[in-house]
């Protein structure tokens, strides 16, 4: 906390002057369970991508699923629940 800016240095009215700064807000550490993806079972149907509320399913240039972005995944488990191939398993997050 001590390294953060004091009240005199902040822009007024809570405005954020840098666009796209939400990227810096890594919500992944909220997670209590992590999705573990099995590439061998995955058919890249991208249903998980559509359902993921945190936009955390990574897709490669070839439109194939490439994994989960754990910086932002909050571990809700929706992807695991929706995957028709059972390619995602939820595991307890160990820190």
């Amino acid at each position, binding site marked *: *906390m001590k390294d*953060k*800016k*004091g*009240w*005199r240095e*902040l*822009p*007024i*009215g*809570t*405005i*954020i*002057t840098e*666009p*796209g*700064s939400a990227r810096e807000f890594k919500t992944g550490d909220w997670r209590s369970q992590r999705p573990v993806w099995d590439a061998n079972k995955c058919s890249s149907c991208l249903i998980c991508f559509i359902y993921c509320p945190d936009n955390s399913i990574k897709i490669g240039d070839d439109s194939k699923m490439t994994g989960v972005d754990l910086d932002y995944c909050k571990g809700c488990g929706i992807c695991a629940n929706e995957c028709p191939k059972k390619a995602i398993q939820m595991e307890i997050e160990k820190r």
Partner: protein
Amino acid sequence: MKIRALTGNEAMAEAMRQINPDVVAAYPITPATEVVQIFASFVANGLVDTEFIPVESEHSALSACIGAAAAGARVITSTSSQGLALMHEVLFIAAGLRAPIVICEVNRSISSPINIHCDHSDTMGSREAGWVQIYAEDAQEAYDLTIQAIKIAEEIFLPVMVSTDGFIISHCMQRVEVMEDKEVQEIIGVHRSPYSLFDKPITIGPLDLQDYFFEHKRQQIEVMNQSLPVIEKVMSEFNARFNRTYSIFKTYKIEDAEQVVVLCGSTCGTARVAIDKMREKGIKVGLVKLHIIRPFPHKELIELLKSFKLITVLDRSDTMSTMGGPIYVELRSAMYGCSQHPTIVDYIYGLGGRDIDVEQIMEVLLNGEEIIKQKKVATPIGYIGLRE
């Protein structure tokens, strides 16, 4: 300068026309309805360049105003009573986002019981929302202070509400000196927002958690701390230009007084007549009319009031704290920091539009003389014109 016969509502609408705000978003409510109704006719007749947004509630009205202010617009709305209550949530947001919005507020009691008449419980109930609060005594002040309010708001980037007493000011026709449009434009100048949604991408109103929320609130406290000199500056510029005498509070015959009455709003006129009559009897009383309730000018009031024998506060609302009305509670709190402690008493009056007259105030002042003589206060909080 023109001399016109205007009601308080007409005076505020006229000030709005001359300010020519970029956006007005509003919803009607008695007794403030006319302010925007008249303004809407200015819009319809092409007399202003304003984007007028008729919304479905006061909550939406102030929300739309915030959006407009975020885009860098000059913004005004008007409301009263329950309308201000419905805005309550958004009042805090406007202040926190430092949106320089002006509300032309017409004071009216808050339900329940249902009542449409004047008291100050609506705006006094919003004291902690972070808005500058200015109280007018008559239609002329309603006009002048609306113009000053937009300038104050835009200098410190805080929202400002200007209050007039419902019906007593809002609906009574009075003599009002109206400036030329050009003069009003010259004094308010061009509004320059330090940020705008249109300049470059910015985020307004983000989530602000344990790490920064406190710092942002401290900023808000600081701008309130620093607002009084700005308010004084705007008032003195206005005074110099239009030959007026505005200040954060105004005194009347206090020089040799032993007892002073402290109050705000339309009853100041009634109280001045009472003071004159008391002085005819040789009783030394004076009056302090408060224009600014937020920020509360505590240092200045201590300096002004510390050497009187008795301060008689008249409050047109109650705090329901069992400690009296808001002006009394705050003034007593302020005076605690002063080495001299004049006696302070409070009278609640005029709730729900209950009439108050010269004789009633004279009676209060006579009670005060008795307190000074006896050096004893039997009941510090009294009620004027209430049936027991």
